[in-house]
Each structure stands twice: as structure tokens, then as C-alpha cells.
């Protein structure tokens, strides 16, 4: 029986990227806090907001915001915003430190908008930065 091309020797352990970790500070506007509370829908005691960055988008990185049950991962920093727990992973901390989160209502959709002082550029839709 053959092992297949992926069954032999010489493979490395999973690659781990070293990233700079900083203490994250976030700025939410009053509108953003109001919109966030509406979205939490009373689940503040069990759920948290995770703000993260992932590759993609026109400029290299995309913002992502999720309301999830408190993650088990110990790599998160926790910031309290008006009673709501906001989590940012250490690996994203240098990219997201100092961001300002606003909420805009427009007839064309609107939603949370992020201004990032660490970004050299952003794409037209505002969801991607680099």
C-alpha cells in the first residue's frame, strides 16, 4: 500500500508567524455603541464582539466583525465598551490598535465604518485596508 505524496518525511511543523503584540485601544462613536447594543440584542452577558483582520480585499486586508459566544482562545485582548465586551486577537493587535468605529445609516446600506490610523491605504468601499 502506498502512502501517497503527502505521507512521506520532510514536512515542517505548521508555520507560525511572529507578530508584534500591542495593547489595543478602540474608539467607538455614540452611534456605533447604540448600533452595537441593538445588534447584541440583550446577549451582552454571553456574547462578545470580535473585531479582526484577515487577508483579502483590494488593499490586502479586510475588517471582520462578529458577535459570537465568548471564544476559548487565550490570545484575545478584552476591551469593555459601555458594558459590551469587545475582543481583538493579539495577532491583529498592531493592525487594529487605535481604530475608530462609527456607524452610518444611508439609503444605500450603511453600517459600521472603520477608520484605521495604521493603514497606508484603503479601498473605495472602506472594508479593505493595507
Amino acid at each position, binding site marked *: 500500500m*502506498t*502512502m*501517497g*505524496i*503527502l*505521507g*512521506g*518525511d*520532510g*514536512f*515542517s*511543523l*505548521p*508555520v*507560525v*508567524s511572529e*507578530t508584534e503584540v500591542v495593547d489595543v485601544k478602540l474608539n467607538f462613536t455614540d452611534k456605533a455603541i447604540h448600533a452595537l447594543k441593538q445588534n447584541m440584542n440583550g446577549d451582552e452577558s454571553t456574547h462578545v464582539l*470580535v473585531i*479582526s483582520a*484577515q*487577508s*483579502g*480585499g*483590494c*488593499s*490586502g*486586508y*479586510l475588517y*471582520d466583525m*462578529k458577535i*459570537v459566544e465568548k*471564544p476559548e*482562545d487565550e*490570545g*484575545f485582548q478584552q476591551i469593555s465598551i459601555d458594558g459590551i465586551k469587545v475582543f481583538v*486577537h493579539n*495577532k*491583529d493587535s498592531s493592525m487594529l490598535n487605535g481604530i475608530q468605529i462609527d456607524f452610518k445609516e444611508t439609503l444605500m446600506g450603511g453600517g459600521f465604518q472603520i477608520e484605521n490610523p495604521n493603514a497606508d*491605504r484603503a*479601498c*473605495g*468601499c472602506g*472594508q*479593505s485596508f*493595507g
Partner: protein
Amino acid sequence: MRKNASEGEYFLRSQSLTLLQGNDSINVIDRVVSTRIVDYPDSHGIDVLFCDFNGRITDIGSIYKIQEKILLLSSEEMGNITRKTLIDGKSWDEKCDLIIADEAIGRVTLFTPDFQSIFTRMGHQGIELERNRVIEIDDMIAVKSEFPGGSVLDILLPLNQMSDFITILEAAEYSEMSEDRWNFVRLLVCIPNLTDISGNLPNECGMVNLISNDKGCYPGQEVHARLESRGKTVKRLCLLTGEAPISPGKYRLSNGSPIHISSCESSDNVSYGIAKLRVDDIETGYVSLDGVNWKVEPITYL
């Protein structure tokens, strides 16, 4: 193939090989390449471009889906940077491990008009080769790739089985190519090298087929979309064919236009080069450089 590709030659390719495993691996790669890969079936090879936010090519790769994992072959020069792009861009909740396979898997590229003969020698009859179809044979995989100047067969296999495979090749009277010979045949067949395409736009390199305009955002997408709808290709990557020796570098044609030769090789009074030229200068099919005429053909990858 055009001419001068000898029968039965092989070259041991140096590449960056990365194995991605985990349910989200395909999404992690799909977000950063210009080619839509999520819909491709298993057992199929896909060529992809990595671009910067200006739409310029930073790396080129091939993706093979094997045993629910993904094998990424990318350039040796940019291997670690491409890996860092992938690992840094993984979200906190995505399942995707990157494993370096440079010391585990080897790549042999075969040039021959008769790919079947090597399979027959290995005891496998009637293997149907199709462009970019990944065929698993024992512990190895075989993929036929087509380029503007001909076809090649890539064999990927565990490095610890490489010497046995080379013994089979040499018994079949295949000869190993030197670096110079490989470069000559590579140019003849028009196999893209990062040296030739890095920093250029895909349309300049004849690689618009590696841009998926329907996949949404990826680095460089805004520029590519604008080029597709309103852009004009000003420069093109071309194959130069002539009889005089030539060297890489930036020159002026006899009419004063710039030409940038990124790769070149000569053998038996035939010279090939890959150069970037103004589109206006290639309309006649010939250019004059230092009083010597060169045939020019824009390269368009399949």
C-alpha cells in the same frame, strides 16, 4: 513545440512547496489570489497570480487539491513572503495550517513528445493526460501543463523516492538539463518565470486568463477591473527569436523605443529572450536592436 526541444529531457525544479490543511484552506488562498479557485474540482491544477494593491504581479503559483489538502507551488524567490501573506491573513477562527514541503516533495519537469512512455516503463498503461488534470500514480502525481510553445509533464513525488525515479528516467534515455539548457527550453516553450512577470500587470504578460473578474475583491482587483473595462495595454511581454547572442537588460530599439529583456538564452545559433516592449513596436512582428532583427511574438498564456 516550436523547435530545438530535444526528446526525453528532464529538469529538477527548485520551487517553494507549501501544504495547506484544514477546512478553510481554500478560502484563505482564494482571498489573496486573482484567480477564482473555490469552484475548481478536486484532481485539477489551477494556476494563480498573487498581486499587490496596484495590481502588479508579486508571485505566480499552481494549486493542486490532493486528498482534501492543498499543495501550493510558488516561486522560490517569493516563497517565504507568500507564505507569510497567507499565514498573517488567516482569521482567528479559520482552520488552516501551513506546512513547508520543500524538503518533502520534489518536482521534475519532463520534455518529451511521448509522455506515455515513461508511465509504461513504470508499469502503468493507458493513463489519460489532460491539461491541468492531477493524476495520482503510486506516491507521485503527474500534471500535464500547456504553454504557448508546447506541453510539459510535471511529476511531483516524495524527495526520498527521487533517486529511484531518476534511475527510471535515465534507463529510458532521458537526459538531465543543465540550468542553461532549462532556461533555453523554458523560453522556447514560454514557461513563465517570476523574473519575467514580477512587477508587471497581468494584461501586459498575456495572463488575463488568470484574472477572475467575477470573484469579488482581492489585492489588485480594483486596478484589474479598471483595466478590463477602460484600460489600454501599452506594453506587452514578448518572445524574441533571433540568431545573435543577447543579454538581459534595458536597451533602446533602433527607433529609440525602450525594450527590457528579462530572460534570454542561446544555443546552436538560436537565441530566445523574453522582453517587455511597447505594443506599437511589435505590430510588424520584428524589431531591430543594435542593427540586428528579432522576431517578436506577444505571449498569451492559455
